[in-house]
């Protein structure tokens, strides 16, 4: 036995001695207090109060927000809630299978008491969510998100702790080096000029992480509305009533195909993962990425010394408006079949409390979804200030959530990969798949 272990260890040592060893690198000093907010004490200082005695009730709270800082903040808020009320909260982040797990639980009618609705409060979860119109925060929902979390009868389904305001993120240092002024990018032609300039300095114009297929879906979701639906009511109506002519989709495919042929994307656009992309932007090797502003926060975690920003989606031609997408980011709804309606209600009210909501939205680096709460968006603040009140910028919902039948997000992700893989019949494959899937799903509605 020992002899075997020794032999295996020996084999390992042999391998090492053949290749050599690396030296210990210097580690950047990552002291959490540097970030200004000490995660151990939520604003308001709950720990000074006497802890409430346990009620024996534990709420199950499923959330899908990644990143250590946000996750820690959520756990901390839940702890404080338990201290104040004696109601336990088990906050669980199930990982990248979040929506699959939620679907299984809906199918079995076994929902958690409270969960994050990630953009689907109305379209997918409404059947299972408690209307929130009677809650104290219902009158404070920010107008720009209200339309997307209420149904046509005005029923409110989720508490928007913060909200997405999404454009294309970029590394300012790379653009500066390439001689591009981000504010000059008004149309896709301007954007393509910028890409050419970035390519000229030997860096990647557009970074993709296609192994995580949602990044491909994002790309389609970002580009499509500017070409198809923005300021085009005929197409909007056609998409919604099922009469859309999918030959029009060629415009979107051609645009992305053109970028691909111009080598704007990273070589491993289809096989890299999202985090590789974030690293590329953080290390100033790539300029643009089609991802929401939370991507910027991730970039700063890896390299606090770089300079990031985001621009609205360019317009398809001169004279048309640029656009930004708004949607849920960290939004929480409660089950309409929970065993603990009172406790869940208290939890939602607690999350909506000004200090708690501000603390969470700040940790996410996003504007708050409640108009009585201001969050500190840190280094992103100038961008939110610049775009939020700019009437020249169209505020649009996410393309797939608004115009495509539920379930077609999958087709956007897959066809995005087909285009970038550059296979010969990509164009017809993509348009056919979109058309077939659309007709299939429309027929079922």
């Amino acid at each position: 036995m020992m002899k075997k272990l020794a032999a295996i260890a020996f084999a390992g040592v042999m391998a090492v001695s053949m290749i050599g060893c690396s030296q210990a690198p210097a580690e950047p000093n990552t002291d959490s207090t540097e970030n200004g907010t000490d995660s151990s004490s939520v604003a308001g200082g709950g720990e000074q109060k006497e802890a409430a005695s346990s009620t024996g009730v534990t709420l199950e709270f499923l959330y899908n927000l990644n990143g250590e800082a946000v996750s820690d903040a959520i756990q901390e808020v839940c702890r404080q809630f338990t201290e104040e009320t004696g109601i336990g909260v088990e906050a669980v982040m199930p990982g990248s299978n979040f929506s699959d797990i939620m679907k299984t639980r809906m199918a079995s009618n076994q929902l958690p008491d409270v969960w994050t609705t990630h953009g689907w409060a109305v379209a997918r979860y409404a059947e299972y969510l408690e209307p929130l119109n009677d809650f104290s925060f219902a009158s404070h929902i920010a107008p720009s998100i209200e339309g997307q979390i209420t149904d046509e009868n005005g029923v409110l389904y989720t508490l928007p702790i913060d909200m997405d305001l999404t454009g294309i993120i970029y590394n300012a240092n790379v653009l500066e080096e390439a001689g591009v002024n981000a504010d000059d990018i008004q149309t896709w032609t301007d954007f393509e000029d910028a890409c050419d300039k970035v390519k000229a300095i030997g860096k990647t114009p557009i970074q993709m992480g296609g192994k995580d297929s949602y990044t491909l879906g994002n790309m389609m979701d970002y580009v499509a509305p500017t070409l198809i639906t923005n300021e085009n009511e005929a197409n909007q109506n056609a998409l919604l009533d099922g009469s859309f002519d999918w030959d029009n989709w060629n415009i979107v495919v051609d645009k992305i195909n053109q970028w691909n042929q111009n080598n704007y994307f990273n070589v491993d656009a289809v096989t890299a993962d999202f985090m590789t992309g974030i690293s590329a932007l953080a290390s100033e090797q790539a300029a643009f990425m089609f991802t929401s502003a939370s991507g910027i926060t991730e970039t700063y975690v890896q390299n606090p010394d770089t300079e990031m920003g985001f621009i609205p989606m360019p317009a398809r031609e001169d004279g048309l408006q640029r656009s930004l997408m708004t949607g849920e980011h960290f939004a929480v709804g409660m089950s309409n079949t929970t065993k603990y309606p009172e406790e869940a209600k208290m939890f939602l009210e607690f999350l909506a409390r000004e200090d708690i909501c501000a603390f969470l939205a700040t940790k996410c680096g996003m504007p708050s979804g409640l108009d009585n709460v201001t969050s500190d968006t840190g280094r992103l603040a100038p961008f939110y200030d610049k775009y939020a009140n700019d009437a020249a910028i169209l505020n649009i919902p996410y393309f797939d959530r608004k115009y495509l039948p539920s379930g077609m997000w999958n087709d956007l992700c897959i066809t995005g990969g087909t285009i970038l893989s550059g296979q010969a019949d990509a164009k017809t494959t993509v348009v056919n798949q979109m058309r077939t899937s659309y007709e299939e799903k429309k027929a079922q509605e």
Partner: protein
Amino acid sequence: MKKQHRAMINLFYVPAIILFVVFVVYPFLQGIRLSFTNWNGYSQTMKYVGLKNYIRLFQDANVKTALINTLIYGIMSTVIQNILGLAYALFLNINFKGRTVVRTIIYMPVMIAPLIMGYIMYFFFQYDGGAINDILIALGMEPADLLVNSGAAIAIIVIVNSIQFVGVAMVIYLAGLQNIPAMYYEAAMLDGATFWDRFKHVTLPLLMPAISSSTILNLIGGLKLFDLIMALTSGGPGFSTHSLSTLVTNQYFSAQSAGYASAIGIVSFLLIMVISNVVTGYFDKKEVDTQ
């Protein structure tokens, strides 16, 4: 043995059969029912659509791709694992110092969960900082994006799966080899048989039971391949590396066509069953022939 005794021992089936009926057969029948609906996978409402899902399935080009890939994953993994596993077994059947170490190390990867193996293998094949590309760069070559080409990606999946699980085939063959009485070889040696003759006329026929179990086991494993594909390519680019089982997941959850996904699941179950039965039947016949 007494007839009564024989009948009585059938009672020993009971616990196993109860588990199978409650936790496999019942859910499986539910799955069959779902395959005739247009269920989206989460709503409390669904409509029966008859055979529509099955008709759609036979016209769906993506199902065809997944079917072909499933057969490639299943058959190629089986072939590689059996040939390599038999070669390893023959090699380790030679008495030399340290062969147990070799045997142990060949079997070790079997103990890594396929999903985790997939993640580890992504460290190898990834373009940016991947271990393979580090070697290519060190040799002065251009780094390659190995997983973008669907042919290469399928080959990589087959090879990784085969190398990981070749230990199982090896152990089965080792066991088979050690059960071949030495006197057969001695007799063959006396007749002046060459190594190849002995392999062909003594080893192979007597290994038939081992070949049969190893083939069936690897075939089922390969046809059901799932985790590794999810970790390496998630079925992409496009639908090009999907197997039937990953396609079921994709259609079930992402595409929200649970009814359709159930139909694909049923068809893939039938496919695995038919293939395994044909192969088992073939080996049963072969074993009878050689006896």
